[in-house]
């Protein structure tokens, strides 16, 4: 692999993990698997940057797609047939974060995750890409593979809804 690409990947690694974490609904173990599989795709040249978009938006698109693949695999594992096969192969493992891991997450981050989880997936994605990853709406549209108009709509609605969800009164209601 070219040195320049490896350097870019290294620089993006923490943010890529944050994006993978978002795509995996905050599940640390799954996010690590997704990111590792995305790196594997690059190593095996199953994903190649063609230069039509910036490296970061392309790479985040790969991670997003890999997370969706992983989600489908997880759904299969949770099916009856999948559970049976996993019992036979002895490959079963718990994808949920450990209680210790949950304790490590501070309350504010957990609260943000809970609120984002209540938003439609597209709204949560665009908010993460803009506020967390510091992407523009155009770049977010490239990552999400939707039009800029659609992204703008998700962005505005998502912001309004997230603010409502983050209000202390609303948080108290949902907690009760």
């Amino acid at each position, binding site marked *: 692999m070219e040195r320049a690409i490896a350097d870019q990947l*290294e620089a993006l690694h*923490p943010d890529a993990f944050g994006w993978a974490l978002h795509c995996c609904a905050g599940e640390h173990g799954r996010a690590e698997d997704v990111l590792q599989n995305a*790196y594997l795709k690059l190593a095996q040249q199953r994903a190649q940057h063609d230069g039509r978009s910036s490296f970061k938006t392309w790479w985040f698109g790969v991670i997003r797609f890999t997370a969706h693949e992983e989600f489908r695999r997880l759904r299969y594992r949770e099916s009856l047939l999948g559970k049976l096969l996993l019992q036979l192969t002895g490959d079963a493992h718990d994808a949920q974060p450990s209680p210790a891991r949950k304790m490590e997450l*501070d309350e504010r*981050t957990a609260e943000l995750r809970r609120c984002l989880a209540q938003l439609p997936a597209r709204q949560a994605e665009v908010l*993460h890409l803009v506020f967390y990853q510091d992407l523009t709406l155009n770049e977010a549209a490239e990552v999400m593979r939707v039009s800029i108009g659609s992204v703008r709509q998700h962005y505005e609605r998502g*912001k309004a809804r997230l603010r409502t969800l983050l209000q202390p009164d609303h948080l108290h209601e949902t907690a009760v």
Partner: protein
Amino acid sequence: MKPQSDDDLLEIFSHARRRDRDEAPAWRPELLDGPRQRPATPLRWIPAALAAASVIVVAVFFTHAPVNEPRLSEALPPLFESQPGELFASMEPSLMTFEAPSDFLLPDHLNPYNP
């Protein structure tokens, strides 16, 4: 109307970003060097092999199973195996044996049964 500032959301997301960076796994450049070798799991192939073997056994059973059903010609009633002939031939009266109730009115030379 002044648009609402997004500083509140930026601050919350920035905090989450800092937390996640602390949690991020270390960068491993060896991941990019070549395909990752999956750990060997000797039992992984067993379900697939069992499924394939089952399919083969079922296929062989159905292709080579003896057919117990009799052939159609054997299953049909013997009516269709009788000798071909005129239908109701046995019921038709012969001219030589036919006796009409009015035979006694015939003159003697026309009545074959009258001696």
